[in-house]
Each structure stands twice: as C-alpha cells, then as structure tokens.
C-alpha cells in the first residue's frame, strides 16, 4: 500500500532529512513552526528594549560599543527569524500585527526591568546563557530554514554570553558597591531565567508533538536542569551566589537539586501582568505607528522611480 503523505513526512523526519519550505508538511507542523519561529523573532526584537535602555548610559566607550553591537545583533537575529518564518507563508507585517495585537507571545523574560548596569551583565550571562541552551538543539531542528537561521544566531549568542560574564567578572573584582550591584541583579534575574525553559514537562501541551517532529530535541525540564548545573558552577568563579537556599549537588542524581519555581508568577507574566509587559509592547507599537509615514514614503518613492525608469526604457 502506498504511504500517506503524513507517513512519508514522518519517515523523512525519523531519518533526519530536513524539511524544506516547498516540501509537503502537515498543516499543524506549519502552524507550530510559524508560532514558534515568530515568537522567537518577536523575542529578539522586544529583547532589544531592556538592554537598549543602557546604551546611552554605558559606563565606558568600550562597553557602549559592545552593547550597541550586541543589541544590533539581536535585530539581525530578528531579521533571520522573520525571514525563516516567511518561508512558511506568513508575511512579516502579519507577524507584527499578531505581536502588536497581543495574539503572538514573546519570551516573558523581557517583561522584567533592567534597573542597573549589572543587569546588562546578568542578561548576557543568564538570559543569553539560557537562550543558548534552548537554541543549540534548534540548529538540528527538522525545518531547514529555521535550523540554518539558528546556526548563525547561536554563534553570536555565545559571544553575547561571554561579554555578559565578563561584565560581571569585572564587577566582582570592583568596589563593594559594584559587587552588591551585581549580586542584586543576579538575585532579581535568576528565577525568571530558569523560567525561560517554559512550563514543567507535564504542563507543556505542545512538547510531545514537537519532539516527535524533531522541532524540539530535549524537554523543558531537561534543558532547565542542564542550565542550572552549568550556572551553579559558573557563579562560583564570579564569587557570587544564586538566590536559592535549596540549590545543592545531588550526587546520586549527578545533578543540582533546586527549589520550587513560582509558576504563578510565570503565568501572570505570560498573561500580561509582568512589570514591563505594557511598556514593551507600547514601545514596539509606537515605533511601528510612528514609522508608518516613513514606510509609505519609501514605497511611494520606489513606485515613482520604477515608473520613471520604465518610461525612460520605453
């Protein structure tokens, strides 16, 4: 009997053959990818805001240049990812519309405020660190354009993480005020960072299908554990602590045990009640709305120019 399209598709996935935009794919696979990739693109764009806050206040010209380059990289990541999503038949404008209307989500970590310079270090170290943990497996995602975009993103993210760690290392060797600035930032960002891996496995409804389709390779809890294990060691190098009294090495498991995550906070932030949800979205909407006349001018000019060229050619 002839294989159904769906079975043929799954067979390709099982044999690790990449799915390309023109290949047949189940509608749900397409929709899952659009949701995930656009959410990821939006996170890059919204993620520019909390760090962008500190470009004009960076404490040295070197730090300013590095931070500016980093935030600009995030814009570039947004661009690759929007392009990858567009191969699935959705336009960038449609994705923006979904973001601005609140239908599309973005990583809830960016709804927390950046209050001190040390937050820039911590975002690089913890937030980009957690992002890398999530994203490295995505370089092997079954969907070709997504996987290829992620290869480029991951290269740059590892540079971002190093610069964050280096900011903190400098603060750790600095004055008492700088050390407490850094510890305070770690205390504020730690729990939101480990929430970045998403809900617990048994409460993550899309995970099973995404793993079967090899969009996802590891579960939320596996990645979270891996991140905690790595970070618990790195924090010792910095001479700071993580704000979890239950964090301790469990020899039998070969992993760190950790305290209970406040999932209520996680869901509240996702539902729009985080400290900066409104500001972040408003900032994006404002940029988009105030840019309307600029985009209109650019397209009117292109139309006129093409018309003139056609006239000349004729």
């Amino acid at each position, binding site marked *: 009997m002839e294989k159904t399209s769906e079975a043929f598709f799954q067979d390709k996935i099982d044999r690790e053959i990449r799915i390309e935009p023109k290949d047949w794919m189940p509608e749900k696979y397409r929709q899952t990818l659009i949701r995930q990739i656009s959410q990821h693109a939006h996170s890059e*764009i919204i993620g*520019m*805001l909390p760090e*962008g806050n500190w*470009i*004009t*206040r*960076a*404490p*040295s*010209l*070197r*730090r*300013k*240049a590095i931070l*500016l*380059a980093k*935030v*600009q990289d995030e*814009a*570039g990541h*947004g*661009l690759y990812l*929007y392009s990858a999503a567009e191969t699935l038949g959705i336009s*960038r404008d449609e994705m923006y519309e979904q973001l601005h209307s609140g239908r599309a989500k973005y990583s809830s970590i960016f709804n927390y405020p950046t209050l001190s*310079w040390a937050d820039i270090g911590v975002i690089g170290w913890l937030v980009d660190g957690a992002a890398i943990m999530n994203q490295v497996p995505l370089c092997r995602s079954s969907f070709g354009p997504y996987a290829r975009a992620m290869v480029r993103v991951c290269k740059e993210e590892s540079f971002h993480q190093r610069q964050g760690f280096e*900011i903190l290392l*400098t*603060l750790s*060797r*600095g*004055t008492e*005020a*700088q050390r407490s600035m850094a510890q305070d930032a770690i205390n504020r960002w730690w729990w939101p960072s480990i929430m970045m891996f998403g809900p617990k496995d048994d409460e993550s409804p899309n995970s099973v299908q995404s793993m079967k389709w090899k969009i996802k390779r590891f579960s939320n809890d596996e990645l979270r554990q891996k991140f905690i294990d790595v970070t618990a060691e790195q924090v010792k190098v910095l001479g700071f602590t993580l704000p979890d009294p239950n964090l301790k090495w469990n020899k039998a498991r070969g992993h760190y045990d950790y305290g209970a995550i406040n999932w209520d906070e996680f869901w509240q932030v996702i539902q729009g009640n985080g400290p900066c949800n409104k500001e972040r979205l408003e*900032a994006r909407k*404002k*940029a*988009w709305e*105030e*840019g*309307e*006349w*600029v*985009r*209109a*001018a*650019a397209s*009117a*000019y292109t139309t*006129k120019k093409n018309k003139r060229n056609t006239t000349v050619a004729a």
Partner: protein
Amino acid sequence: MNKTQQFNQLLNLADNALIIGHRCSEWCGHGPVLEQDIAISNIALDYIGQARNFYQAAATLINEDPEMLTGFVLPATEDSLAYLRDQREFRNHLITELPNGDWAVTTLRIFLFSAYQYFLYTQLKDSGDLSVNAIAEKALKEVTYHVKWSADWVIRLGDGTEESNRRIRHAVDHLWAYTGELFLQESELQQQWLQKVQLVFEEAGLVIPEKTWMHQGGTSGNHTEHLGFILAEMQFLQRAYPGSQW
C-alpha cells in the same frame, strides 16, 4: 598648529562623533523598519568608534605634555575625556546635540553633518598631522556610507509622499541654521559641501534656504540646553561611582 590647537581639534572631532553617535544610538530598537534600525545602529557604532580613536589621540597628546592645559583628569584616557568633562568643556558643533526629532530630522542631520565630515576627513587624511591621518582615512570609508545612506533618505522623503515632503522641508528649516557653525570662515570645504548638498537637495526637490541667522557656540563650549541632558545620562555611572573600573 600648536599642540593646544591640535588637542582642541582632536576634542572637536571626538566630541562631534560621540554626540551624534549618542543621538543615533537612541534609535536602536525604535526604528521605523527593522533593516533601518540596524543601519542607524551601525552608523552609531561607527561614530562611537571614531570618537574613541580621536579621544585616544587627544589623550596621548595631553599625557605627553601635561602642562599644556589645566582642568583635565590626568593621565587622560578616552573615558576620562568622554565621561569626566562637563558641557562647557565639550567642543562639538551644536547640530550634533539637537534632539533626533522624526526620521526626517534624523536623516537630514546625518546627511548635512556626514557630508561635512566627508570633505573634512578627506583633507585630514592627507594633512601633515600624523595623529589624525590614519583615523581620518579609516573613518572616511564609514562616512562615505553614512553620506550615501542619509542622502538616499533625504531624496526618498523629499520625493516620497506629501507628508514626507512636508516633514523633510520642515527639517531643512529647522536644521539649516545650525550648519553655519561648521564653516566659520569661507573655505573650499564649505564650497565642496554646498555643492554636495545642492546636488542631493535638487534630486529631493528641496531648496537651500536663503541666507539666514546661523547659531554658533559649540566649538567654544556654548551649547544648547540639550547637551547637559545628554551628558547627565551618558556620564551617570562614572559620576555616581567615581574611580571604578567597568
């Protein structure tokens, strides 16, 4: 040119680049189109890089001859010069410190200023002053792109929609009075600059304003109210935590 004049010139070059770079960097994350957000952040990054190079050259100069001028934190570094001087000591032209306004003011300011930089750096790269030759040569490549990018926008906005045309004309009216300060004496530089502006304005359907009052004072430390706010924001950490390493 004696050493003090040389030092002041380096500060003027550095302050110009830093302050206009600061303004461009304010767009990061707020641009009208993602690609343009990246472009203007990139321009900001170029400017910050130019500022660093000029500050480093200025610092070398004053550290070699600390008696030259008083009132500077010594030994001087790129950061002491950027972060530990107050607005009266800044030597940037006023046009660089004006608020961004809309995309028309932003891109026209970059055009008017980078066209000036283009011809200035062209002179500087072949001048007898070794401390600026190499910096100007490298910066010229960047500025060439800034001129092209911003001229394209001025033309697009001038020849775009009714609204964009109105906005860019308004930007010309607003910014023109700050261009006189770039050329305190009649010079070849000014002629070259005018020609370039004329060319782009023609394509954009814009008219160079009649002779008008020109603001000046930046290079002698008489700034607009805006610079103080820029510095308050930029220098905050260095001022609040003096003597710290970052």
